[in-house]
């Protein structure tokens, strides 16, 4: 439900990152498994956020970042299946820690400067 507000923030930051009058083609964002954001809902919110505006048609590219489970002794636990959680290290039996997965970042923007000139011939 809060994805709309996040989509609008992403659009604001993307707009600040490109020259005036540029047309945004694509915005890449990182969304972590522990970010409380559903990628499908964010994608739908993005569609609604850009629709009918100057950046209509701009695409959102979601770079999904799973959390990692780590053991103080054995390092990262590759046995972990994303979406499920291990409580103890399968190798040494120690309790596991968690790293990453909290990402909710605007990574980069792909744009075309001066949209007027590059839009091709006007009918």
């Amino acid at each position, binding site marked *: 439900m809060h994805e709309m507000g996040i989509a609008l923030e992403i659009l604001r*930051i993307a707009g600040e990152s490109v020259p005036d009058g540029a047309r945004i083609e694509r915005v890449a964002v990182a969304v972590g498994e*522990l970010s*409380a954001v559903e990628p499908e809902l964010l994608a739908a919110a993005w569609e609604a956020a850009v629709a009918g505006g100057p950046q209509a048609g701009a695409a959102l590219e979601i770079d999904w970042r799973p959390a990692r489970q780590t053991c103080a002794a054995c390092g990262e636990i590759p046995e972990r299946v994303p979406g*499920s959680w291990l409580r103890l290290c399968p190798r040494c039996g120690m309790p596991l820690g*968690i790293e990453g997965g909290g990402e909710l970042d605007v990574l980069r923007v792909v744009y075309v400067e001066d949209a007027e000139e590059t*839009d091709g011939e006007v009918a």
Partner: protein
Amino acid sequence: MSCETDARVVEVQRRALEANEEQAARLRNRFAAAGTLVVNLISSPGSGKTTLLEATVRRLGASLRCGVLEGDVATERDADRIRALGVPAHQILTGGACHLDARLVERGLDEAAFGELDVLFIENVGNLICPTNYDLGEDFKVALLSVAEGDDKPFKYPAIFSRAEVTVVTKADLLPHLPFDLDAVRERVGTLRPGGTFLVTSATTGDGVDAWCGLIEARLRAKRNG
């Protein structure tokens, strides 16, 4: 479609919610200067946030200056429940939004004019997902989980249980009637938040409420003593 070669790339690397985080940082400075401990309570609707706060201010209200910000989509009901106990409370109506953000808290705080407080409790809008991302300048988040909601919830909503420093299981008086595996919940929360605090309470019987209030008092002392 335009010619691909015209496209330029700019690296951005900014937090999507940086605006809220900046506002929250200002609030955090304000609370630090005032020496106020701020607790952000998050749970599903009806898990017992207001009831636990009622029990809390009954115990702490005499010795500490408490204030409560109540976040709800509509109605003044929760703030009225706190005010009935002689503790100042202010209702923040989000007008449909499913969570509080730092801007709403700042505005609510200014409207409330609580004066000097030792502890500010912020009851977030009943929702286990949306409030997770929004820093309110709090000292710590508390996730509440009532035993009626089921013991699978920590792994279903890992974001909030990984970010809440304290998890409070509520309505423990109902445990005999429900298939709720308390040890499994403790383990799951421990997986998501190693080293976090795990409390079990019943506002009905009062079990665990002293431990919860003791935690608040200890955290306030720690904040005041740097």
